[in-house]
């Protein structure tokens, strides 16, 4: 396998991991929302991410060409092999926590996907084209929620500020590059995320400010998702997600 092909396989896997992990976390809200309309919205957003994960993994499987399929990528790798960003695996927390995480992720995809759309790799570009439309809707929703929660009651404000403060340190690694991603960026296949932080920060700052939320200082950062150095949360999440699949090896569903 060429270096570029191997890097693209790794890249598609990383993006698939981000999607499946975040999609799983969002799905944990179904039947736990503050009202019925939110249960529906959560289901919707989760479905979009599971759909993205399937597209990225299917592409990864195609590149790997070793007989694996999308489910092997999702269900047969352990937490040390997963390469998702840490932000995506944080537990659902309260409603403010989930919406703030969602805002950070939605703004990230808002700046990332138009770049991925330009990829020379047609499959990655096609996935980006589909995802851009979904992200537009996702951002509208998470932005509205953060505004309402931040500028709602004293309690909702406090919870939202706390969530922002707790999650901020996990956003830095979203803009880290390593050799694999640098190679792909140089080839016009992958996105140079190190160039996206300013745009991300501006959008997030505008929204948080309007929501009367203080933007935290960059005083701490936790990193490691892309090298498989996760928080303790992912292992539990994957244990639950993979239990049925792994208990019945080789079965079709």
């Amino acid at each position, binding site marked *: 396998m060429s270096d570029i092909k191997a890097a693209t396989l790794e890249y598609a896997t990383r993006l698939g991991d981000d999607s*499946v992990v975040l999609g*799983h976390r969002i*799905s*944990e809200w*179904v*039947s*736990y*929302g*503050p*009202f*019925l*309309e*939110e*249960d*529906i919205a959560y*289901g*919707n957003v*989760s*479905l979009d991410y*599971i*759909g993205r*994960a*399937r597209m990225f*993994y299917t592409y990864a499987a195609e590149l790997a060409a070793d007989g694996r399929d*999308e*489910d092997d990528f*999702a*269900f047969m790798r352990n937490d040390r092999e997963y390469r998702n960003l840490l932000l995506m695996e944080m537990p659902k927390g*309260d*409603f403010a926590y989930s919406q703030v995480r969602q805002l950070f992720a939605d703004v990230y995809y808002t700046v990332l996907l138009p770049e991925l759309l330009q990829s020379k790799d047609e499959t990655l570009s096609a996935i980006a084209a589909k995802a851009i439309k979904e992200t537009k809707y996702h951002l509208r929703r998470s932005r509205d929620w953060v*505004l*309402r*929660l931040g*500028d*709602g*009651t004293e*309690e*909702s404000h406090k*919870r939202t500020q706390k969530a922002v403060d707790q999650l901020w340190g996990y956003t830095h690694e979203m803009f880290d590059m390593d050799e694999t991603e640098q190679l792909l960026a140089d080839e016009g296949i992958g996105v140079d995320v190190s160039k996206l932080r300013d745009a991300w920060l501006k959008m997030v700052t505008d929204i948080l400010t309007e929501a009367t939320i203080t933007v935290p200082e960059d005083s701490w950062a936790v990193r490691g998702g892309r090298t498989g150095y996760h928080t303790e949360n992912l292992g539990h999440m994957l244990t*639950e*997600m993979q*239990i*049925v*699949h792994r208990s*019945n090896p*080789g*079965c*079709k*569903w």
Partner: protein
Amino acid sequence: MTPQEEQFWAKIEAEEKIEPKDWMPDDYRKNLIRQISQHAHSEVIGMQPEGNWITRAPSLRRKAVLLSKVQDEAGHGLYLYSACETLGISRSEMIEQLQTGKAKYSSIFNYPTLTWADVGAIGWLVDGAAIVNQVSLQRTSYGPYSRGMIRICKEESFHQRQGYEAILALAKGSPDQKAMAQDALDRFYWPALMMFGPHDSESAHSQKSMQWKIKRETNDDLRQKFVDQTVKQIEVLGLEHPDKAIKWNEERGHYDSSDLNWDEFWSVINGNGHCNRQRIEHHVAAHDEGEWVRDAISAYNEKKRAKKAQNAA
């Protein structure tokens, strides 16, 4: 009979729909509120036993199908709450009735979903039984309910096919998967039959509901339809029929089957099934935890309104 009553009965007689602004007898209205809200609550509580498997679905495709199904159920809950609101009751009143036990929901959701196969069994048998009932309700006399049913039936028949297909994959899979399918069938078959309600002779609301054409077919007739259609489906799966007494009756043109365990039926209806307490506690907990979120929306909207008024002045 007053002229209003005469008009009402003339419409019922002529198979015309009663609409929200039409005059209707109080008991008709009450009966509809009971039935439609019960139906809405069933959709909403039904999200729990299926939602129980979203995070453990064994493939990404099945996870997506299940998510989308549960989302549809929530959507059905919404239309039905809206249909019921046309009768002069608010959603928050209905939720309160659910949480205090004043309103019921389908007892089937008080049975636990213990394995992945249960998700398939619910789609196939529970949605299957619901459709038999709902198809007949498409002709119900109240307009908003009838139109809601037409829409819901389309989605439910899709769910039923998906559920059957999920069970089929298991029944044709490994011995363990097949055993899982058989176990789910054995546990859900009987409660699915009970979904049609007690025998007609024991049913408190049936007779009046039939006269008003809220209900179009009797519990026992609908149950028989379901029994008949399920025999062949079980054969195709290659599973054993849970009812050892099932037998074709040439004279009746229907299958004869065992009588149901009505003690269990009444016990679950009266709140003593595996999950009655759990389901309501889950709903109450989510609703209570959501209170600060709902308060935040009101406060935010109030601030925006005040600002707008200030700017206008």
